[in-house]
């Protein structure tokens, strides 16, 4: 521990820095450039863990742990929840819409980075004392002394801040009900009055070979009907299009049937396909 906290950094730490540093940077880049939000979130989490390690290496044991627990644990989970809510697969195209935005952004970023690093470069202080003295009474105790002594006021205020944030979050997400929720009866009446979809919505098509909540049921003419899929999936554009597959399956089925019944394959398939479709439907219903 003390060695880590000392002002001369060991080669071990150096190695650790160079390896994990690379990982952190990669993670960061991933956060920015990966298409899917989920992936960004994961790579960010990676970077944070690396940072936690660095905190530890810098003698900020408490913060290191907090980093892992709060950030990687709580905050990133929160992120993931939202991502799920908004749609895991909702990948926003990286195609830029604002003209010149990307180039400006990169330019600024580059310039800023260069400046920053340059600034640090010529502000470099060669020797520095480690945290040995400060952490002598233990890091946590030290922090606590400061937190409840010097910074107690700020600490209290952060408490207030957190509560406010919680309330704010609730206010923002809570949807205000202006009138009492409609009962089934009322909904039904309303539907009748509107005069659309008077019967219940059709069920999604179902295949044995995979979860089919996201498969659109086929209309008599074989085209898939979006109505059969739940609204949320529709929102996310996660309807699985199986129309072609269904037809292919039918072909195969017929093939087998023909083989079994030694029919000649040269029949025009047209009139029978419809029938066969119903048939297959029936079969599937039995299964």
């Amino acid at each position, binding site marked *: 521990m003390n060695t880590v906290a000392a002002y001369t950094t060991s080669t071990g730490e150096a190695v650790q820095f160079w390896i994990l540093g690379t990982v952190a940077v990669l993670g960061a880049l991933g956060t920015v450039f990966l298409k899917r939000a989920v992936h960004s*979130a994961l790579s960010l989490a990676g970077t944070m863990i690396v*940072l936690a390690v660095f905190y530890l290496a810098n003698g900020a044991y408490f913060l290191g742990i907090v980093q892992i627990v709060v950030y990687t644990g709580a905050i990133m989970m929160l992120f993931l929840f939202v991502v799920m809510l*908004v749609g895991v697969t909702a990948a926003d195209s990286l195609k830029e819409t604002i003209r010149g*935005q990307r180039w400006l952004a990169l330019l600024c970023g580059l310039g800023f980075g260069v400046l920053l690093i340059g600034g640090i470069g010529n502000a*470099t202080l060669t020797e*520095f*004392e480690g945290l040995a003295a400060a952490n002598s009474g233990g890091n946590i105790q030290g922090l606590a002394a400061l937190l409840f002594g010097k910074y107690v006021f700020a600490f209290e205020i952060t408490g207030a801040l*957190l509560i406010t944030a919680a309330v704010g979050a609730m206010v923002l997400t809570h949807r205000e009900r202006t009138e009492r929720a409609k009962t089934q009866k009322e909904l039904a009446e309303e539907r009748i009055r509107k005069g659309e979809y008077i019967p219940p919505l059709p069920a999604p098509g179902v295949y044995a070979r995979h979860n089919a909540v996201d498969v659109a049921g086929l209309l008599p003419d074989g085209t898939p009907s979006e109505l059969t899929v739940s609204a949320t999936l529709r929102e996310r554009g996660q309807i699985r299009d199986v129309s072609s597959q269904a037809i292919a399956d039918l072909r195969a089925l017929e093939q087998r049937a023909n083989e079994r019944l030694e029919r000649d394959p040269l029949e025009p398939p047209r009139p029978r396909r419809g029938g066969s479709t119903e048939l297959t439907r029936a079969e599937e219903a039995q299964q």
Partner: protein
Amino acid sequence: MNPVNYLYLAALLFTIGATGVLVRRNAIVVFMCIELMLNACNLSLIAFSRMHGNLDGQIIAFFTMVVAAAEVVVGLAIIVSLFRTRHSASVDDARLMKL
């Protein structure tokens, strides 16, 4: 090795995060990038506290985390309600500022 490298790393991360904020349109990802920037700051703070040999830097980093937590809570709530109203999490869709 010289712990100043931590600062370099922090600067790098910060820049990447900033660029991300500018480049990405998905509000959630933008948010993540902001978090990245905050973390970069924390890293530099902690490195500083090590250099100066006192814990104030860590305290500030701690506060940053707290504030960041609060900020995330509110921000995500905003995003959610945004998504509810306009069915998209793209920051470009929220441009009511334009006359």
